[in-house]
């Protein structure tokens, strides 16, 4: 049985439909990411699960039971926000202890102490327990905010872009720590982000939400390797996927605006369609079938982006290390045939029949 289930959730606001028939389930111990651009309905989804917002249609189930009529407090979910919302005049210890001191819990002091200390240990903030939260750095504050959610041992964590206010280096560190913590705790987590790297790196499964609709659900591998639409294909992966118009001519796939042609796949392709090629699948190779001119190089350190001009077309190629190619060089390259993505005129992925 899945722990959280959304069934056909629809939510209208006066001027806009925020969610349209959204369904997904989150399994026990799963790290589930809701990925989508601003305004996709991600935060509204979280608020409906937490009970802060009421849906117009559909139902939310926790451990198989509908919870639609329960108050937020009765749902036993913990929320972590982008803004830390800590009590600035209290110490870190008191911030962590706060949810446990609620009269409803009636928790004995020694138990509170051991829970707070355990949590601080896990988040590596033991040395900060006596400090006031106003004196902490952004990364430390977010650790405390996560700690305050964990200490309650709720049934479900809801996290709304908790890393997006932090600088790039800190985000990298906390991403890894949060994932480690979630996996070792086995806590069920629903994490909302617009950042595709956060989604790919942290999720067990991802649901892609666009304009209130769940377009695709799957593991990071599914989303990256088999994107359901051109939008999803372009949303995940940096640099962005090459998306080019192509057509079938005499049994080969001809890419428009270039002389490039490839063997046709065993797919039911219409006369014209879109071809997606990930930059790492365009590989410079002295024996490659194709040629292009290097018009720009972007060395990123660990790898280099080459902009290759072929006819009217510019393709991005991602190569390991600091590439030796220079602007103006003519290079031969090859395309990894098995990794191509085909999309129909409706922008949806074309798959082999029966798939």
């Amino acid at each position, binding site marked *: 049985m899945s722990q959280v289930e959304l069934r056909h959730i629809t939510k209208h606001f006066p001027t806009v439909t925020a969610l349209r028939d959204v369904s997904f389930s989150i399994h026990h111990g799963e790290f589930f990411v809701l990925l989508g651009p601003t305004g996709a309905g991600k935060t509204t989804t979280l608020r409906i699960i937490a009970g802060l917002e009421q849906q117009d249609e559909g139902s939310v189930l926790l451990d198989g039971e509908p919870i639609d009529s329960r108050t937020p407090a009765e749902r036993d979910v913990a929320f972590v926000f982008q803004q830390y919302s800590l009590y600035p005049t209290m110490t870190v210890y008191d911030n962590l202890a706060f949810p446990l001191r609620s009269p409803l819990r009636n928790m004995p002091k020694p138990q509170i102490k051991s829970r707070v200390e355990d949590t601080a240990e896990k988040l*590596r903030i033991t040395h900060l327990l006596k400090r006031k939260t106003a004196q902490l750095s952004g990364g430390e504050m977010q650790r405390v905010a996560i700690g305050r959610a964990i200490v309650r041992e709720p049934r479900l964590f809801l996290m709304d872009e908790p890393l997006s206010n932090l*600088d*790039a*280096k800190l985000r*990298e560190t906390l*991403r*890894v720590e949060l*994932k*480690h913590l979630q*996996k*070792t705790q086995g806590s069920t987590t629903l994490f909302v982000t617009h*950042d595709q*790297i956060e989604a*790919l*790196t*942290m999720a067990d499964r991802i649901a892609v939400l666009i304009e209130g609709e769940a377009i695709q659900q799957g593991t*990071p*591998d599914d989303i*990256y390797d088999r994107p359901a639409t051109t939008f999803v294909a*372009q949303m*995940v*992966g*940096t*640099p*962005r996927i090459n998306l080019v118009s192509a057509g079938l001519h005499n049994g080969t796939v001809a890419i428009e605006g270039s002389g490039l042609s490839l063997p046709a796949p065993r797919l039911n392709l219409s006369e014209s369609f879109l071809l997606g090629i*990930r*930059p*790492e699948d365009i590989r410079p190779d002295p024996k490659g079938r194709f040629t292009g001119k290097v*018009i*720009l190089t*972007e*060395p*990123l*350190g*660990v790898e280099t*982006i080459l*902009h290759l001009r072929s006819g009217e077309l510019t393709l991005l190629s*991602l190569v*390991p*290390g*600091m590439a030796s190619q220079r*602007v103006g060089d003519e290079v031969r390259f090859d395309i990894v045939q098995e990794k191509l993505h085909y999309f129909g005129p409706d922008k949806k992925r074309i798959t082999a029949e029966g798939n």
Partner: protein
Amino acid sequence: MATIELNKIEKKFGEFHAVKPLDLTVRDGEFVVLLGPSGCGKTTTLRMISGLEAVTSGRILLNGKDVTWKHPSERDMAFVFQFYALYTHLSVWQNIAFPLQAQGEKREVIDRRVSEVVEILRIGHLLRARPGKLSGGDQQRVALARALVRRPAAFLMDEPLGALDAELRETMRAEIKNLHIAQHATTVYVTHDQIEAVAMGDRIVVMSKAEVQQVGTPVEVYYDPANLFVARFIGSPGMNLLDGRLTEDQVHLLGKNRYAVPAAWKRSLPEALGGRDEVVLGFRPEAARMDPGGALAGEVFATDMHGGYSLLHVNVGENEIVHIRSDRQTSYPIGTPVRFDIDAEMVRFFNPQTEAAVSREVAR
């Protein structure tokens, strides 16, 4: 055409040292990036070059002429800001034509030059629109066109992509670089984004705490960072840096890990450490390879997928996490004991007292 020389330029705001004396020569046609975290002094440096900020001491030369005390408008440099600073009540055409009109250029000249830059930036279809109606990317293209139309000796850009979303940043990054390749105008570009810096810069000036940490090509700052700050700051994730102690030819790391000093370093390393035994071992995530017979051991802390590759995060003792780049094929559960090796060519050493890198030149 411009060469910009900065001779010990310095900025103090009262007691606060915003930029410590800084020397730099930007060569004609060069794209130089000032890179650093917020508050490092990079924007103040750019504003001193432009004349928007007066230097506390030092000299600024443009093509050999002292412009230190010249008004910004007399320096022949165009400034592009993060926020586009367009006139919202004027059309795109009027915005671009504005600097030429202000100079009192003839109508034919204005028409011709505006058409040229509009073509270069592919914004011909937007000329009648008001800037407020445009996307962030198009607004920045208009701002670039307005800078370009003046044909200044140099361009100064202050985080011009900072307000754009990630996708657009990627596109505009390539567009600005293409523009630079086509125009070959001397450019000083400020950013806090290390990816932008290495992707765009001919040379990069890495700054921290009001001081230059390193000036170098992308290859130099990436492979041979001058100190611990640069090693951490460049790369995502940055260089792995492990504290150790040198005894004989071994670096003793946390836990039971020992790393044998590569032959090339054996003589130079003890000298560079000045008789002390503390040392920092550095290597990039792609320099490590999983290998059951590898010299270093740890256990898997987390793994994650980044699209084309995976990162393996390995706890090598006391929660010291090492990042290793690997292919996507293999997955390791958390807690799995693993061994790995480091490519000896890619190993770097740092002196923790001075934070400086031990020179590879010495090593050879």
